[in-house]
C-alpha cells in the first residue's frame, strides 16, 4: 500500500546473512559407515545445519558454512558416528 | 450554577436485593418522560446480604456530574431493618423524602424530612415474587418512588418489562403499580 510512508520494522528473511561457520573451534565429522540413519543429529541441531541428502555414499551432511561446532550432534548420535575434530 | 432541577436519589438495600437494578430501571423510566438520568452503584465490591447503596440522578438536561451523591433529595430503603445497621438519613437534604419498605411503623424518628411507607414485602409475597427465600421488593419500591417523584407509573411499568422481559416483567410491573397506589405518608 503506497499511501503508507512510515519506516516499519519488517524484513524478508534470507539465508545466511552471517556466516556462523567461522565461529567454530571444532567441526563435526561423520563416519558414514557407522551411520544408522536415525536422524537424531538432524533433529537436535540447534542451527538446522544438518541436511538429509540420502545419496549413495551418505545419508546426512553438515553445512559447514553455518555449523557453529557446538557438538550436540556428536553427543546425541546413538552409534558414536560423529567425532568433533579441532579446526586446523 | 448547579442545575436547579437536579434530583439526587440514594437507594439502601442489601447485596442481591436489586438496588442497582432499581436505580437502572428508574432512569430508563424517567427517560420516557423526557428526563435525563444517571444510575450508579456504590463504587466497590458488593456481597450478598451486606448493606449496599446505589444512586440515581434525574434532570431535564444532561447531568454532567460524576462525583458521588452526598446530599440526596430522596432516600429509598428496601429493607426495614437497614436503619438499625446504617444511617440511612446521612446527608439527606432538609425537606428531603424517605421512602421505606415498612407496613406503617418505622424507626426513622422525626426531623426535617417526610417519610413514605409501603409494605413492599407483603406485595412481593402476595404476588409470589420470591427468589432464593428473599422477597423481591425492588420493583415495588420503584412504584412507590414513582409516586413520590411524580413520575407516570405507566412509564415505570414499561421500563420494568423492557428490562426484565415479558414474563418476569409483567408481575414486577403489577407489584410496582400496587405500591404506587398503596404508598402513604407516615404521620
Amino acid at each position, binding site marked *: 500500500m503506497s499511501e503508507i510512508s512510515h519506516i516499519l520494522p519488517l524484513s524478508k528473511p534470507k539465508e545466511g546473512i552471517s556466516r556462523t561457520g567461522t565461529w567454530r573451534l571444532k567441526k563435526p565429522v561423520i563416519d558414514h559407515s557407522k551411520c544408522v540413519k536415525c536422524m537424531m543429529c538432524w533433529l537436535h541441531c540447534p542451527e538446522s545445519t544438518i541436511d538429509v541428502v540420502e545419496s549413495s555414499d551418505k545419508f546426512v551432511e553438515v553445512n559447514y558454512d553455518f555449523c557453529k561446532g557446538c557438538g550436540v550432534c556428536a553427543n546425541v548420535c546413538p552409534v558414536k558416528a560423529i567425532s568433533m575434530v579441532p579446526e586446523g | 450554577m*448547579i442545575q436547579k432541577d437536579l434530583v439526587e436519589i440514594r437507594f439502601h438495600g442489601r447485596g442481591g436485593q436489586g438496588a442497582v437494578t432499581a436505580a437502572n430501571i428508574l432512569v430508563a423510566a424517567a427517560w420516557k418522560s423526557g428526563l435525563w438520568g444517571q444510575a450508579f452503584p456504590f*463504587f466497590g465490591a458488593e456481597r450478598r446480604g451486606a448493606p449496599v447503596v446505589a444512586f440515581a440522578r434525574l434532570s431535564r438536561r444532561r447531568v454532567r456530574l*460524576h462525583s458521588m451523591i452526598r446530599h440526596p433529595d430522596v432516600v429509598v430503603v428496601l429493607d426495614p431493618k437497614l436503619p438499625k445497621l446504617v444511617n440511612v438519613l446521612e446527608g439527606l437534604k432538609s425537606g428531603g423524602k424517605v421512602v421505606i419498605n415498612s407496613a406503617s411503623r418505622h424507626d426513622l424518628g422525626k426531623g426535617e424530612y417526610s417519610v413514605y411507607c409501603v409494605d413492599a414485602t407483603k406485595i412481593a409475597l402476595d404476588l409470589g415474587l420470591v427468589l432464593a427465600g428473599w422477597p423481591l421488593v425492588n420493583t415495588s419500591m420503584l412504584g412507590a418512588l414513582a409516586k413520590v417523584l411524580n413520575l407516570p407509573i405507566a412509564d415505570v411499568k414499561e421500563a420494568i418489562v423492557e428490562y426484565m422481559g415479558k414474563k418476569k416483567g409483567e408481575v414486577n410491573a403489577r407489584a410496582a403499580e400496587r405500591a404506587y397506589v398503596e404508598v402513604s405518608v407516615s404521620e
Partner: protein
Amino acid sequence: MKLVVMHLTGNYAVAWAVKLSRVKVVSAYPITPQTTIVEKISEFVESGMMDAKIVRVESEHSALATVFGAASSGVRAFTATSSHGLMYMYEMVWWSAGARVPIVMAIVTRTIGAPWNIWSDHSDFMSQRDTGWLMMFAEHNQEVLDSVIQLFRISEDPRVYLPGMIALDAFILSHTTEPVDIPDQSLVDSFLPGRRQPYTFKSGDPITMGNLPSNPRDNMRMRWDVHKSLVAAKKVITEVDREWSKLTGRSYGGLIECYMCSDAKYFIIGAGAWVGDMREAVDMLRSEGYEVGLIKLRFVRPFPAEELAEVMRGGKGAIVFDRSVSAGSAGPLYLDTVAHLGALNVEVPVKNVIAGIAGVDVTYNDIASVVRSFIEEIESKGVVSNYVEWYFR
C-alpha cells in the same frame, strides 16, 4: 438516520462501539473493573449479533500478544484491561507501538497497588505515556462510545498507523448507566471502512517483524517516525472529530475542548470523568464573578501543546488537575503543560493540584474551592506559593 438511545454503563458503551466497529478478534483477561466489557462482547458473539473470535488467554501479556498477532495479520482487533493487568502487559504495549500495529485498547483506569484498591485514579493509564500509543480520555459514556469508534479510524489512518488507548474512569464511568445514542451500523460503516494494511503475513511468503536492525540508526529513525506520526495524528484527530460531528451532530473539539474560555483569565485543565464536575465548578465560579474557563484534555498523546498555548496566551493563571503523580516530581499532565507552555513563551503561572488519587471522591465544590484560593493568591501576591499541592478533602 435512525436514532436509538440505550441506557448503558461505560463498559457496555465500549462493547457496543467494538461491535459497531466490526472488530474481528478480541482477547482479554478479566480484571475488575474492566470485566463487563468483555462479558458484553462475549454475549454479542455468542448470540450471533457480532461476527468475531474471542481468544481466551492466561494473562494480559498474552491478551495483547494475541491481539497484536491478529492485527498484524490484517484484522481489526481489540483488548481491554485495568491497573495491574496493564502493568503485566507493559512489554507488549511498547512492542505494539514499535511494530506499528494499529490496535485499540480500553483502559478502565484503576489505582495501582499496594495496597489493593479497585477505585479510579489515572496512574495506570498515565504510566503508558512514553510508549508511542495514541492516548485519549473520555468524559461520559456517549463520548466513550463515539471515541472508541473514532480511535479505530485514527489508529488505522495511513498518516498515523499506531495503536491507541482510551481511558474511562473505574466505576465513575465503567459502572455508571447513562443514556447513549447508538449510531446506525451503516453510519459507522461509512465512517470506518475495512482495515487496510501495507503487508500481510501468509504462509509461503515469510516476513520477519521486529528483527534486529542491522544499524541502530535505522532503529532510531523508527522511533523518530513513531514520534512524528503522533504529531501528525493531531490533524487526523481534528478531521475525524469534524467528520463524526457532521454524521452525528456530536463534536468533542478533537484534541481539546474548551468551556467558557473565550473571555477567561484563569483556566482549569483536566482530563477524564471529573471534567463534568469541573464544568459545574466553572458555572459556579462564573456566577460568583470569577473569569474562569475549562480546558478539557481529550488527547494526552499527542500532547496538545500548541492548542493549549493558543487558548491560554494572555491568561493570568491556570490550574492543572492530575489524578496521578510522577512521585518525586509532579503530576504528568502538569509537567507536559508547563514544559510546552514555557517553550512556547506563554508566561502564565501554572499550579498543579494532585487530587482524587486512589479513588478519593472529588466534587465540583472541591474544585471550586481550590480554584478560588488560587485566584485570590495570584490577584493578591502575583505568584503561586505551593505550586504542587496535594489536595485532601
